[in-house]
């Protein structure tokens, strides 16, 4: 029943045989050992598993690996380029946008998507853009400030 899949993950080509029921998040974590992408719920709500699939933020717990066949995946591990943090990563560090860090990879990937689509979001737009990501530690205020920081930083670049 295994299916062959071909993906490009963080710039590296991968070919594997997987069971159809293997979720993309488990493929990334268990097969590729990219454990930065987390699982926080069973119901596609918490967003901890968010990755970019073909340039779009998706919940990798709600995509089977076979569905991603032929796709381009960017995980949190692939966000920094040439050792330089993505502006959103920098914002989270600078503004204390994380505490336990568990929701953080998904939050950062989603925020990166948000800024891709809207370079200068309002507070309300940031909140709307992060609707699919739960954080139980920060109370969101520092996360919002982190995204604002990243927007400003990216705007200056």
């Amino acid at each position: 029943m295994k299916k062959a899949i071909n993906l490009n993950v963080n710039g590296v080509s991968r070919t594997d045989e997987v069971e159809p029921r293997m979720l993309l998040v488990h493929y990334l974590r268990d097969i590729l050992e990219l454990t930065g992408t987390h699982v926080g719920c069973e119901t596609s709500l918490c967003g901890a598993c968010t990755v970019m699939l073909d340039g779009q933020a998706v919940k990798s717990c709600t995509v089977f690996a076979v569905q991603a066949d032929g796709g381009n995946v960017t995980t949190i591990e692939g966000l920094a380029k040439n050792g330089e943090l993505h502006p959103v990563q920098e914002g989270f560090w600078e503004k204390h946008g994380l505490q336990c860090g568990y929701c953080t990879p998904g939050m950062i990937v989603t925020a990166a998507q948000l800024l891709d689509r809207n370079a200068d979001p309002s507070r309300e737009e940031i909140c709307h853009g992060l609707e699919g990501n739960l954080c139980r530690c920060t109370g969101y205020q520092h996360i919002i400030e982190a995204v604002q920081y990243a927007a400003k930083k990216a705007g200056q670049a």
Partner: protein
Amino acid sequence: MTNNYVGKRVKRTEDPRLIRGLAHYVDDISLPNTLHVAFVRSIYAHAKINSIDTSAALAAPGVVAVYTGKDVADKIGPVPCAGALPDLKVPDHRVLAKDKVYFVGHPIAAVVAKDRYAARDAVDLVMVDYEDLPVVTDVEAAAAGGPVIHDSFSDNIAYRLTSGEGDIDAAFAAADRTVKQRILHRRLAPIAMEPRGVLARYFPGEEELTIWSSTQIPHLMRTQVALMIGIPENKLRVITPEVGGGFGSKLNVYSEEALLGWISMQLGKPVKWIETRRENIQATIHGRGQVGDIEVAIKNDGTVLGLRYSVFADMGAYHQLLTPAIPTLTGLMLSGAYRIPAIQMNITACFTNKMATDAYRGAGRPEATYVVERAFDLVAAELGMDPAEVRRKNFPAASEFPFHTATGLDYDSGDYETALNKAQEIAGYAALREEQKKAREEGRLIGIGVSTYVEICALGPSQAMPAGGWESATVRIEPTGKVTVLTGASPHGQGQETSFAQIAADELGVKINDVTVIHGDTGVVQYGIGTFGSRATAVGGTAVFVAIQKLKEKAHKIATHMLQADATRVSFEGGKYSLQAAAAASATGTSEPVVPVAEAPAAALPEPQTEGKTSLTIQDIALAAHIAKELPPDTEPGLSATYFFEPKNFTFPFGTHICVVEVDRETGDIKFLRYVAVDDCGKVINPMLVDGQVHGGIVQSIGQAMFEEVVYDEQGQLVTGTLMDYAVPRASHVPNFELDRTETPSPVNPLGVKGVGEAGTIGATPAIVGAIVDALAPFGVKHLDMPIKPENVWRIINGH
């Protein structure tokens, strides 16, 4: 010491690994040949198990073993309860149900298979024959009689307790009026974003077991699990890798931790179990769960004479580690921020067919603050006074500290009025009241809630704790000058890798990057208590601080010897021991560090070079202490000190929260207009971390006040079993917070810190509820129970 880091907004040293996805939580650790465990859990709240048929599961591909309660009953000891109260009933709770299940989610069988898929598939193949038993879900009904959950007991009452000081009857006799209110504290699910998880690996040759667990208390868990499964404690190593939040839910010893360790010993292979979110809501402890009646005796001028709180506390089906202790913490904090001469707390704690309650962020104290603050709002309403003024009237003055309460505590330090004044000033309180008046005239419903809370932190003196209230630290300077701090605290998001490094760097006069804080590994760190009760910095940080002083005493001795000076002439400043006469000269110049701090590998340790020097860095001394050729007589080599800090008292942070809401008349929707919080957590090590703790706490309060509630139906079925039903606040649910601080140092520890981990969940609910109730005051509303949903509001406005 220097002042480069403490008190400053230092970016976290934890973050680079976390923001790049390179940190390791339990499920991120993979060992070769790991077997995976999945649990068969009860679908009934109360039932007899007639039989369990595991044959189909055992025959399924990939399945290695299936264990049931019968297999482990005489192999693994009961799940421990550390609560020691007079006449406490402690059910014999085993890691797997044996004859009976008594809550939905009660583990019945553990399926072990070669991968997660096979384990999960086989769970569906285990056939359990249940026989329904009558279900007890309501805590008051449980107290009143009816079906008994545990056959070994005659009723469902776990314990009764009365506490408090002062003549409560006299207080009520002398009162002009009394104010009463029934108050519900619903069950909450902690929902740490990382569910629990355990990985266990037994090494048969060494007879050693390592358990990686997402826990807040690695050492306490080691002791308990060692006892449960009968392995010598020093053959068990517990490692907490990155822990994705706890909020008290991981301040526990759970069935799965012992069971996984035991299974690994049976099978000789690593075994892993990662909790699903449904399991997490079913079988990780819940918080709160009280139904109480508050009664306050007052004078017509607003003076409070006495307070009585009689509460039914829902223990759930059995005790986890601290289950019975939680309501007693409520009793301790019933004096709030006020002078109340007589206080009485009556607890009736009962078993119900639900998951155990235990410590959830605040752990009993939010309940106390909430009832006291609600009571003060009711007093204000009764007397037509401003709620802030009733509070002010009953504050002890700053000069009265240490302040003794009728709950038997001595508040360490406080200045409640200054915090209230500051919050009122930031909020523009008087103007807000004007605005509210005007809005009401226009038919708009604006409400202002005030909460002046005190909490109890830095848990705590060992005398007051079930098992040790101290914390430990070892600080050592390695030969290369790197500073290693081993703390018994076990941070899981709070940021103590940074704040403890700030303390160490300043005390030792080194760069923060030279300090590494290690925690959460019983194989490396001396025994410790862990992180909970807002204790890590006040108790654990103090241990670090004192250990450094010890280390410096020795370093001073060595420095004196090496500088060939009289001890009194050598002083420590900016990381250097200097001859005082020469101090002025060298203060302006920069001395070359003798120990290379760069990372370039060196073939051999350099020789300490002291000749002609008038000063030595503490890092020079560390090298000399390890080379040990130039030590004073009778001095141990090495430069390391360990300290176990036993606090003399708790600490008592406080503050004022002011919340402003507007409700939509038509829909009952509640909108935040302002949220001002002035918190006083004593001295602040890192203001950025403190803000983060406050934000997070307030948002958990918003959840409690407006959304969150673990609901069981009458059959004990969990209605809010997934995050589709159990609402955790999202970004769009929260207002912009306006934070400020006052700083009243604690005299309890040399750092002057108090703790801030729970302030938000303690201070905020009364402010939020107070605001909503205040908005609805024109409709004669005096109290509403949480969670206050739009429908509740709509019903009041529209008289439904």
